[in-house]
């Protein structure tokens, strides 16, 4: 913790608020995430987790509040610009490009989000190495519609990785998977984290969050109710209330 605090945060969220009509989905949320951290984000359904992700990745506009990435205000930037700056994400419900093969899905990311100009051959190499790392190499030429649930999840992570992210946001990448598949995806995320990628993981599967995270934040009704080490957060009275539903 002290070591992380000494560095400039990779992502800095300052008093972020998001309203839909009269409904406040996020209420004055502020948090710093240092580079290299494995950050777990939990909270009951409708607590604002995905909304927060959408605000970070740029799918939603935020009026009050600022998002700083590597010391730069990215609040006015469109999603694709944020992606190019190094923020990648997966989706809660996988959103593959359905008319494409797995390889083509990744090529979109390499074509548009690559940071330097590289040849087509080099991009293909990068793509294959990512697919290999994700255990999808054999599926490179399969249509995205023909993948199993766990393969889809992995492909989403692979596509996100192909954008060369510094921050990867995984939105419930393990939902609906069997326990062995959960371990598989968790190992993948761990190995990505060891490659100097900061990861925000949203998850309902508590064991996965506890095992994965350096730090955990719990949202309820758009507010941060607890933040700290996994065991601190789990011990928190309000977190337990939010989950048990008092």
């Amino acid at each position, binding site marked *: 913790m002290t070591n992380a605090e000494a560095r400039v945060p990779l992502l800095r969220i300052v008093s972020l608020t998001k309203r*839909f*009509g009269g*409904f406040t989905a996020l209420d004055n949320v502020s948090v710093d995430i240092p580079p290299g951290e494995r950050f777990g984000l939990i909270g009951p359904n409708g607590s604002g987790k995905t909304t927060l992700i959408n605000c970070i990745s740029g799918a939603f506009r935020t009026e009050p509040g600022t998002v700083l990435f590597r010391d730069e205000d990215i609040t006015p930037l469109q999603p694709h610009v944020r992606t190019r700056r190094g923020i990648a994400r997966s989706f809660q419900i996988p959103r593959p490009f*359905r*008319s494409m093969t797995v390889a083509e899905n990744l090529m979109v990311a390499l074509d548009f989000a690559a940071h330097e100009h590289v040849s087509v051959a080099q991009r293909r190499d990068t793509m294959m190495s990512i697919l290999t790392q994700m255990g999808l190499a054999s599926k490179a030429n399969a249509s995205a*519609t023909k993948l199993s649930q766990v393969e889809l999840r992995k492909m989403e992570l692979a596509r996100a990785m192909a954008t060369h992210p510094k921050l990867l946001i995984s939105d419930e990448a393990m939902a609906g998977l069997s326990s062995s598949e959960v371990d598989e995806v968790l190992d993948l995320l761990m190995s990505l984290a060891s490659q100097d990628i900061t990861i925000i993981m949203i998850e309902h599967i508590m064991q996965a969050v506890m095992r994965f995270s350096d730090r955990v934040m719990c949202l309820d009704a758009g507010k941060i109710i607890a933040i700290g080490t996994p065991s601190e957060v789990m011990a928190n009275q309000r977190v337990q209330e939010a989950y048990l539903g008092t």
Partner: protein
Amino acid sequence: MDLLLDAVVIGVLLGCFYAAVSIGLSVSFGLLDVPHVAHPAFLVLAAYLVFFINEHYGIDPLVAGLIITPLFFVFGLAAYRLYYETFERRGSDAGVRGIAFFFGVAFIIEVLIILQFGVDQRSVTAAYIGKSWRIGDMRIPYRMLVAFGVAMALTLLLTLYLSKTYMGRAIRAVAQDQEALRLMGANPIRVKQWAFGIATAVLGLAGALLIIVAPIDPTLDRAYIGRTFCVVVMAGLGSMSGTLVAAVILGVAESIVLTMFGASWAPAIAFAMLLGVLAVRPQGLFGRRS
């Protein structure tokens, strides 16, 4: 000033009529999200059937409209089934093809009408057509009053149906949350099909009003694409009371432009308003979506 007052009064009556021809679309497109570009073509088809019945059997156009209502209900059920089986269920890329499908259907209906009835204008005969009611200097054609009355009744009935009956509430629920509906034990597809049937059935009377208000021709549906979608989008998708208000706004706007600038500008009014609403406030004036 008198001219303007005239225009406003006629505009309000016209607007209520527009509500009647749009309310079906407010259900099918507004609530069910079906890209029903063929709605106006169905409307014109209904008007031609009314014309046919009126001419051959001398039956009052409103009664004729009621006669074809069950027919249109069944037609609507079948149309939704086909749409669902071919597009909604297949899921991917339904958007492009669904829109093209209804566009194609609209064209087929248009051509079939031309082949059957020719391109000439057609009108119906009834006791209330051709006469006017005078109040002071103002003359209000009876046909507009009939259209106004029937339109109000139709809109009111549908609004009541959607808010008071079990099926009506299920239809509203299907627009919001299909999962909740499934948990309640209702089959969302059945509910949607029923709703589409109702939305089409309403066109029986709406078609009668269309030919009562003015003579019709086979390509009239094109103008009504603008009017009906303008009303439904302006109303905020699926809002029944909004439909009435939006339709009256459109009616008055058209009527005023007609009086001030002449008939040649009239076709563009609805489309211009539609474009304006889409560009500035796509959720409509009384929108259900945030």
